[in-house]
């Protein structure tokens, strides 16, 4: 599980730094990494949760909750993408799904194992 945390820490840290750099620069550094200061800070926060888990006695809690937040943001950005598409239809503007794709959506599958563990514990442990 620590390996999972370590991998997720590196991936989310890289994504956060690239988004943050793009946000400060004013333009996206790479495709899928929007220039988004706050989005970058959110990814850095998620990476910090995984990092904290690497050294913590209850490391599994950080792995599972970090995965849950990553999943939450992945779903949120998918909702934002769908909303932008719907909005474009309503106001009659052009819209390309590629413009709204971002790295957090691609990372969604990586968040599933940790979140599944958390859901399992929700069922097995007292509230």
């Amino acid at each position, binding site marked *: 599980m620590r390996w999972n945390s370590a991998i997720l820490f590196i991936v989310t840290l890289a994504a956060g730094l690239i988004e943050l750099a793009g946000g400060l620069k004013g333009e996206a550094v790479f495709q899928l990494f929007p220039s988004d200061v706050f989005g970058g800070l959110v990814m850095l926060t998620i990476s910090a949760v995984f990092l*904290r888990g690497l050294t913590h006695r209850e490391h599994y809690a*950080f792995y599972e909750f970090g995965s849950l*937040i990553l999943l939450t943001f992945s779903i949120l950005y998918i909702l934002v993408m769908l909303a932008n598409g719907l909005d474009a239809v309503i106001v009659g503007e052009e819209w390309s799904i590629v413009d709204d794709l971002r790295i957090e959506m691609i990372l969604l599958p990586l968040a599933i194992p940790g979140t599944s563990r958390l859901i399992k*514990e929700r069922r097995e442990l*007292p509230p």
Partner: protein
Amino acid sequence: MDFVSELAVARYEKIGEIVGKCVERVEKPKTFSDIIDTVVTDKYVGIPIFLALMWAVFQFAYSVSAPFSDAIDVFFSWCGDIASGIENSYVASFLSDGFFGGWGFVLVFLPPIAFVFIALTILEQTGYLPRAAFVVDRAMTKVGLQGKSFIPMLLGFGCNIPAIMATRTMEDDVDRKITIMVNPLMSCSARLPVYVLFAGVFFKEVAGAVVTSMYLLGILLAAIMATLFRKFIFGGKPSPLLMELPPYETPTLRSVLMNAWGKTLIFLKKAATILFIGAIIMWFLTTHPWDATNGGELIENSYASMIGHAVEPIVKPFGLDWTAGVALVGGFMAKEIVVGTLGMIYGVGEEGVADVIPQHFTPASALALMAITLIYVPCLATIGILRQELGSWKWTAFVVAYELVLAYVVAGIIYGIAVGLGVA
């Protein structure tokens, strides 16, 4: 360690000593809430997690709700277009710009407000909100507020109306009053178009920094005013945050939607009424006297223009003219109106304002206008909610008065510094 913390430590040591003598401990089984709390109340990542979740609330409330707001806008614009075809020009103007324009203007606020409530209800029903209050309590206490103040303050960046209503979770009356009174200083999203327009035109290279500085100015002023209110008006200290952390629950869709709908309905009944009346008043002021304005086409002959000229001596020290006066009076109805009113006055529509404002503003006066827009009177709907939540016209009038004075002082300081630095 301060006295209060030392007292708390001593108290807990004594409790531990007594409990140790008379209670036999058995190993408590690990609960699901223990696992989550290990992370969300962690001293290193607790606050960043809280801020990230609040950012998620923002994204959900304002990005995901956007198509619903636009659908409402498009629908009422369509109704307005049909109404504008009525032969009687007065009736056409009233129905198109007043009635349908007014309702459209009111109801576009509904989706983001409903989405804020949905997101907050989810956080509340999962049991996370009490943890959030616990995590930020220490920082908030330093400025005369308490942990539970943070969420209403943060929501203020979206819209002050649901933000002020969110103070209902606070039990202590004084804490709640102070939180409500400084909440309008949080820069709501309606003020953003003004910052974006003026910063984009006058401070191209550093526009982002100028816009951010307006948000930071709002936070700084709210912290200062909360400290002053606590010290000189209410006295005492923020109430200690005593609460039981409930176990985490999985909210049901039905309970979330019912709860959020109940809160949204309060907005519809109270604020929407005031907003709609405000929109009708704005229509009247910009189109009357009917003959003199040629049916609303010559706004410089309107009552709104007269008000703008009456306000001009007040705003002139900041390099602002009567057009800014009219826009600010319009902004009293709702901050969204400021840019649109300027477009109407200059006869270029909202899209063409950026091209003509350099003729009426300087960089220094633009900074002053941004600061005034941030600080001066809350919009009409917010005043309605202030009255409702403070339960007194006296306190509501006090909030309006202190914000007017503060806006004047801060705008004066900013304009003076900008001119002194040769920005004008």
